[in-house]
Structure formats: structure tokens, C-alpha cells
């Protein structure tokens, strides 16, 4: 079985996993909102840029993005720690998906809301940020929380560029103890404990928002 020291190492690593997920969620969410807004903007160029960005990011495996961030940023002259490179890749990755999710939410806001805001003489900026965005984000809350599960799980890929998160630490421990079933089961349970509450919460939100169709 695992020693106390190994258990401690795993829990520390779990904190890094959670931290990386949080960074991906907060920064990725900020960039993602920008992408979503660009994606529904009236300007054709902005729409095109956002669309291309999403297509490229969604067509590339996160593993390859991690490598590109790790090697690419260092040749640009930034001497980055693996954690920073992994955060960078995660932010790019999550921003594209958030952009698509929130675009769906924004488009799902009934057209009458746009018209009503216009009738109330709201400026287009006010209309968008005070009327449409709050409702759009509310509609897309369940898939957003659902995607957070994906973020937590995908931080496991940061292990390939040497970030000492849960998967990396478990590999290290396995290399010295040779008990893969035990160690990876423990790690799977740790991931499950982080992801399941999110998945559950997402389902609850969905039920709550779906009152009309129950």
C-alpha cells in the first residue's frame, strides 16, 4: 500500500491539478468570452478570425498544444517553467471551447430580447452587455460546468511536459513501487472526487433551467 509520504505527495499534486484547472477556467473563460463576442459580432473580419481560431484549436490535440507551448514559447525568448507553458496551452484550449459554448448561449437568447432592448433605447453596447450576455451565459451555465470536468481531466496532459501534477506524480511513484493498479486507482479516485461534484452540479443546473420542458 501507499506510505504516508506518497499519499502526501499525491495530495500536493492534486492541489497543482486544481490550480491548473482554475487558471484554465478563469483565464480561458475571459479569452473565451472575447472569442464568443467576436463570433457573434456584426463585423465579418472579427467573425472570421474567431472562427479560424476555434477551428485551429479544436482541430489540434491538447497534447500537441502542450508541446508547442513548451517548446514554442521558449524559442520566442521566454524562459518558461513547465507550469506556465501548461497554463498557456490550457487557456488557449479552454478559450476555444468556451467561445463555442457561449456563442450557443448568446444565440439562444430570444430575438425579442434584442428588440425590447432596442425599444428601451439602450445603446448597442448596453444592450449586449446588460441584456443579452447575462441571459446567454445563464443559458449556457450547465455546459460550462460540464466542460469544467473536461478541463480538470485534461490537466493530466500537463504531465508530459513535466508539470508535477497528479498524473506525473503518480507515474513517479509507480516507477519506484511497481504497483500500478493501486497507485492509478487512487489517482483515478482523486480525479473522480474533483470531477463528479462538477458533473452532478451541471446536471442539477440543467434540471433547474429546464423547468418549462419537464
Amino acid at each position, binding site marked *: 500500500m501507499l506510505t504516508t509520504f506518497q499519499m502526501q505527495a499525491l495530495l500536493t499534486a492534486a492541489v497543482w491539478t486544481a490550480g491548473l484547472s482554475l487558471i484554465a477556467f478563469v483565464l480561458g473563460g475571459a479569452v473565451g468570452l472575447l472569442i464568443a463576442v467576436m463570433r457573434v459580432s456584426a463585423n465579418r473580419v472579427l467573425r472570421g478570425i474567431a472562427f479560424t481560431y476555434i477551428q485551429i484549436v479544436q482541430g489540434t490535440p491538447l497534447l*500537441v498544444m502542450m508541446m508547442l507551448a513548451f517548446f514554442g514559447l521558449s524559442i520566442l525568448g521566454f524562459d518558461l517553467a513547465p507550469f506556465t507553458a501548461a497554463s498557456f496551452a490550457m487557456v488557449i484550449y479552454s478559450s476555444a471551447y468556451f467561445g463555442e459554448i457561449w456563442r450557443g448561449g448568446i444565440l439562444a437568447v430570444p430575438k425579442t430580447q434584442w428588440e425590447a432592448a432596442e425599444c428601451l433605447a439602450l445603446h448597442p453596447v448596453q444592450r449586449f452587455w446588460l441584456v443579452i450576455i447575462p441571459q446567454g451565459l445563464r443559458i449556457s451555465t450547465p455546459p460550462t460546468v460540464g466542460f469544467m470536468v473536461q478541463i480538470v481531466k485534461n490537466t*493530466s496532459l500537463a504531465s508530459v511536459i513535466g508539470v508535477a501534477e497528479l*498524473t506525473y506524480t503518480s507515474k513517479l511513484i509507480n516507477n519506484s513501487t511497481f504497483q500500478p*493498479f493501486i497507485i492509478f486507482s487512487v489517482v*483515478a479516485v482523486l480525479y*473522480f472526487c474533483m470531477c463528479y461534484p462538477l458533473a452532478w452540479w451541471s446536471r442539477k443546473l440543467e434540471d433547474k433551467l429546464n423547468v418549462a420542458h419537464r
Partner: protein
Amino acid sequence: MTYTFDFSFLAEYWPQLLKGLAQTAQLSLLSIIFGFLLGTLLAIGRTAQSKLLRRVCAIYVEAIRNTPLLVQMFMIYFGLASVGFKLSAEFCAVLAIVINVSSYTCEIMRAGIESVRKGQREASDCLGLTWLQSLFLVVLPPATERVYPALVSQFILIMLATSLVSQISAEELTSTAARIDSMTFRSFEIYTVVALIYIGLAFVFRLGFWALSRLVFPRLRRLGTPL
């Protein structure tokens, strides 16, 4: 920035990349086909009469969907080897991905099955169809057609996720890239090329699934509208 880009390694290594591409495509197709079959079976179990069967399928799906694919792969590859099953890395890779994709497919197909109206089921009962006949002739075809776009997205994601099998030393595009990288030290260039190949492959897959939808859903072909 004093770095000069150098893509000259491509001249020498492109046959290897091409082979990696073929391996990735093969791995993806195998995983998608078996994952879809297993996932559909699970979805049938998830909507079955028996409460026990429903519960078992639900636990399986939740356990798989809330743990990372990488950890599942390690568990299968290193774990099975430690208890005496010596399986090839390629087989473990397909096994892990099939298990993973089946749980996602299950949830998608369950939504499809539940979207088929109860009256259809009752009508097929009245026509004297057996349970199997009504399932395969009445319920599954429209169910699949309705959730087809979601299935395609999931399958593309799985195609991208096959890059993970490089971590258990199975041969495909990303592991080929890592090997070329270790020989040429042109990390950024090689991963850029590989990223472009993946984007192209994702596009080809999307196109292929679109063509498939025209082929297997005759109603869609004739009318051109979603169900």
C-alpha cells in the same frame, strides 16, 4: 529573437510522418467503430427495464467519464502487465480508448433513444415485432440520426485523443513526432507540422462523417432536412 526556423527535416522524415498519420487514422477508426458498438449496447442497458442493469451501466459511465483517459490508459497498460497479462501497447491503446469513448457514446445514444416517442414503441408492439426487432428497426435508426452531429463531435475528439497513446509507447503520429524530435531537436517545427496534420485529419474526418450521414440516412439524403 535569434531563432531560425528550419523545416528541412521534412525532406528526410516525411515517409515516417505519413506512416504515423496512417496509424493514427487506423487507431481512430478502430476505436470509433468498437466504441460506438459498445456505447450503443450500454445505452440499451441504460434504458432497459431492469433497475440493476440500469444502475450498473450508470456506474460504469460515471466512473469512466470522471477520470482522465491518460490515467485509464496507464491503468490498463501498466496495471494489466503487473498482474500477468502481457498485451501489446497498441492493443491496450485501442482497449482504453474504446472503453473511454463507449461511455460518452452511451450518454449520447441514451439521449437519442429517449427522444423516440413512446407511441413508436407501442406501435411496433402492436405490429407484433419482437423486442429485438423493435429496437433495431424502430428505435435505433431515428435515435442515431437525431444525435448524429453530437456523435461526430465526440468521434473527432476521440481522434484527437489518440495522440495520448504515445504516452504508453504505442506507434502513431505524436509518438513519431517525438521520435523525429529526439533525432533532429527541431521541437517547435515538428509539432507545428503535426498540429497541421491533425487539423487536416479532423477536416477529413468531418467530411467523411458527412458523406456517411448521406449514405446511411436515406431520408436525410432525399429531403436534406434534419429529423
